[in-house]
């Protein structure tokens, strides 16, 4: 003969409830314990401390560029020629793989500032090369135009524009 608790009559055993409650709590506890082990791999506080890079534009002549570093990544600062600007502006934006007018990518048209990391798998594209006379990524053949927009190849997006501002006419601060 077994004795039954009143709860059993409507199909829910007290034991079932205890199983679910204990199991649920255990799962939450385990997840909470695992989280620090996963999170420790994310960028640490010193890496996160948003660094800024200042660039003096004075010495960069028309038609040349420099590569600086921001957050460990190369940043291209290019002093574009009139021809390059015209080429970048004369494009039918709607036909681009990642449609974006040149005007949205610059603060002043003669200065193109962008992160020099191919949006495919992260190589550094080479300047003044490729079918659009902008940048060419040698790794898997992505072609970017004079605005750094992707035109051909496996990369899905345009070269990214970092946050930056003009401190005065010849100095910018990235970050």
């Amino acid at each position, binding site marked *: 003969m077994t004795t039954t608790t009143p709860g059993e009559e409507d199909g829910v055993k007290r034991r079932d409830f205890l199983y679910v409650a204990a199991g649920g709590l255990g799962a939450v506890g385990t997840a909470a314990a695992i989280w620090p082990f*996963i999170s420790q*791999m*994310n*960028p*640490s506080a010193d*890496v996160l401390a948003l660094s800024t890079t200042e660039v003096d534009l004075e010495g960069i002549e028309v038609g040349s560029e420099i*590569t600086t*570093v921001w*957050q*460990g*990544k*190369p940043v291209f600062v290019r002093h574009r020629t009139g021809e390059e600007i015209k080429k970048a502006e004369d494009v039918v934006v709607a036909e681009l793989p990642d449609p974006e007018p040149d005007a949205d990518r610059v603060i002043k048209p003669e200065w193109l500032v962008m992160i*020099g*990391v191919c949006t*495919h*798998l*992260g*190589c*550094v594209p*080479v300047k003044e090369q490729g079918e659009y006379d902008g940048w060419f*990524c*040698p*790794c*898997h*053949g992505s072609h970017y135009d004079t605005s750094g927009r992707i035109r051909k*190849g*496996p*990369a*899905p997006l345009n070269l990214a524009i970092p946050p930056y501002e003009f401190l005065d006419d010849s100095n910018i601060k990235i970050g």
Partner: protein
Amino acid sequence: MSFEPKNTAVKWVEDRLPIMGMLHHALYEYPTPKNLSYWWTFGSLAGVVLVIQIVTGIVLAMHYTPHVDMAFNSVEHIMRDVNYGWLMRYMHANGASMFFIVVYLHMFRGLYYGSYKAPRELLWWLGLVIFLLMMATAFMGYVLPWGQMSFWGATVITNLFSAIPVVGESIVSWLWGGFSVDNPTLNRFFSLHYLLPFVIVGVVILHIWALHTNGSNNPTGIEIKDGQDSIPFHPYYTVKDLFGLAIFLIFFSAFLFYAPNYMGHPDNYIPADPLVTPVHIVPEWYFLPFYAILRAVPDKLGGVLLMFGAIAVLFALPWLDKSRVRSARFRPIYKQVFWVFVLVCVALTYMGAQSADGNMVEFRGMVPVEINGVVQMKDGVVLMEEGITFALSNVLVSQLLTAYYFLHLLVLLPMIGLFERPRPLPASIAEDVLAKSPAKEEASNA
């Protein structure tokens, strides 16, 4: 014959931990098919290479410094200053290549003789898990010397995860511990590179456990029926494997002492420069077929998916192959298609090393001059210039090969299994061995 220790000390241990009995069982009682060929040596060779990697690796770790400012120089220090450091490092670097050579042959052996079929599906799966772990280990090891190829290989491969929609970018920065491959990345790769080989050891133990549960497959693909078909592992296969090992060590030494950098890349002797990508980056040779598949697809996510898919389909092999006969020896059609598949894999390896935007074949001649897609005319005559009349681009060749790779596994394998008429199987392994022995042949010729 079961294990009954005579020595009291051994018996004392055995009663508490029956480890000697286990080894005894594996060596003397475990029945091995009597007809195993040298294709069955690669398993034990892989085990030996794993031990070589662990021993040389632990030695290297005694002299290596996992920091971006010092890693490259510490490897040079190993090469120039540490006693026999050059030997340790060359053994380790070439050992990785040897590991893949041996394991690839081991896998193709399995494909040819149908070793993945029931009841060995789990055995096959565990093998594939080892393969994946090896790839992760070798990839992270290659990053440690912190040369140009280390850095850019790490960048490109970790960026594969950025193809994942929505969370991709967060995953990549989680892998890096920053906004690019940097010191945190190098540190964790060193930690994991030290760990994973021991995980591999664990999976190898499971792999062998699964093997011993149903026994080795063999060139006929039929199971052992009675004592006539089998021999004890020791001394027969210990000796055969030792001979195989001797030949293998000669092969290994030839690279080690005469061409230690043949399978490496010269750019990795240039210290990592995060601002300049080498013009022609290629992964280590053992990743090339998968790299070729990645590059064959013009879409980022598509390329990444297909590359991982190329390995994932191998897990489904036991169910894709519909033939009830295991060994290709008795499968006239599969046997031929198998070799085509091997050639395609070799060709993919070759394509993985070619430049992304080049042409495989190119015919030159006179072609019309075009400007912005408009053919140029002068006085009613089409202007001509020297140019490429016909080209077979590297990308197209890789695409065809990739298509065949999947066609073989997903279409040909199931279809052939259904329609092929296998040759009659021998009644037993013993019968097959006798039918092929020269004594028998001489007798029947007389």
